[in-house]
């Protein structure tokens, strides 16, 4: 019995140690995707200036697998992933729709697309985060994979790289297409 009490502090220390070690491995910035498996939230965004589409709403996402990409002209990481989005568009791998998030100037987003290239099939302007909040967006870029029925299947936080595409997005998109 007495020996048990001597071991107790050591056991407690180990328990706390393991607990904190697990805590170190967690990323507090990484939040759960609350919308996975749920329909795309209802939104209806105005068109970006200079684009000939009528804007972008949730009903546009029915019928085929697509990506919804949250971007902004102010967003540095969006500039990083932009060439790869262009590559997806040029190869016709999957349609990408854009939500231009929190532009202080309505012209800034369109000007950015004009300068670097426009990878989006449809795009909408979201200066007040109305759509972004309903998607649970915390930062740009974020990209959602939406299936044919308009159900959100996956959220990728951060830039899309070749690696992310090959390892995660492409297999998922192919899988969703097969399921039809």
């Amino acid at each position, binding site marked *: 019995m007495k020996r048990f*009490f001597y071991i107790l502090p050591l056991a407690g220390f180990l328990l706390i140690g393991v607990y904190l070690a697990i805590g170190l491995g967690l990323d*507090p*910035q990484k*939040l*759960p995707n*609350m*919308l996975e498996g749920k329909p795309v*939230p209802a939104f209806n965004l105005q068109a970006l200036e200079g684009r000939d589409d009528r804007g972008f709403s949730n009903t546009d996402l029915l019928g085929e697998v697509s990506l919804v990409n949250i971007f902004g002209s102010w967003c540095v990481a969006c500039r990083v992933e932009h060439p790869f989005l262009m590559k997806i568009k040029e190869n016709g791998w999957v349609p990408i729709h854009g939500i231009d998030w*929190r532009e202080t100037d309505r012209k800034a987003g369109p000007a950015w697309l004009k300068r670097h290239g426009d990878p989006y099939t449809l795009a909408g302007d979201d200066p*007040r*985060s*109305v759509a*972004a*909040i*309903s*998607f*649970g967006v*915390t*930062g740009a870029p974020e990209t959602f994979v939406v299936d044919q029925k308009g159900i959100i299947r996956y959220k990728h936080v951060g830039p899309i790289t070749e690696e992310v595409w090959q390892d995660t997005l492409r297999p998922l998109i192919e899988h969703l297409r097969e399921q039809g």
Partner: protein
Amino acid sequence: MLRILLSALVFIMLASPALAVQPDEILDDPALEARAREVGKDLRCLVCQNQSIDDSDADLARDLRVLVRDRIVAGDSNQEVIDYVVSRYGDFVLLDPPFKLKTYALWFGPGVIILFGIFAVFMFFRRKRDDAKEDAKPEALSDAEKARLARLIDEDH
């Protein structure tokens, strides 16, 4: 000097915490605005994670404040507004973690640690008391001492 210090103290105590809520966001109806503040102080700013949306200057926090107000004006109850934000961002957006299976350790942990501490202190003092008792009890005499004692008593007679 004392007077200056005292008046400084009074002013410090009068100061209210600086809120990031901007004048153009504030609702005209003070009752609704009060409810918006009530909701806002419980919601975490997702960008600067240890501030509430009312305390944060971040753009996303501002948009969340506006959303909270829009929903309150549209007739949502405080709980409905909070439920909506949680449905988008998860429990993490609440500054007070909810009471459920996943958070029992969080809520009960400190109590368990205090109980353990009380137990440890109790054991410590009990052992000390027992030791003290043992010290107070005189040791039994050895055979040599007994013989010597008997001799001394005999001498007196």
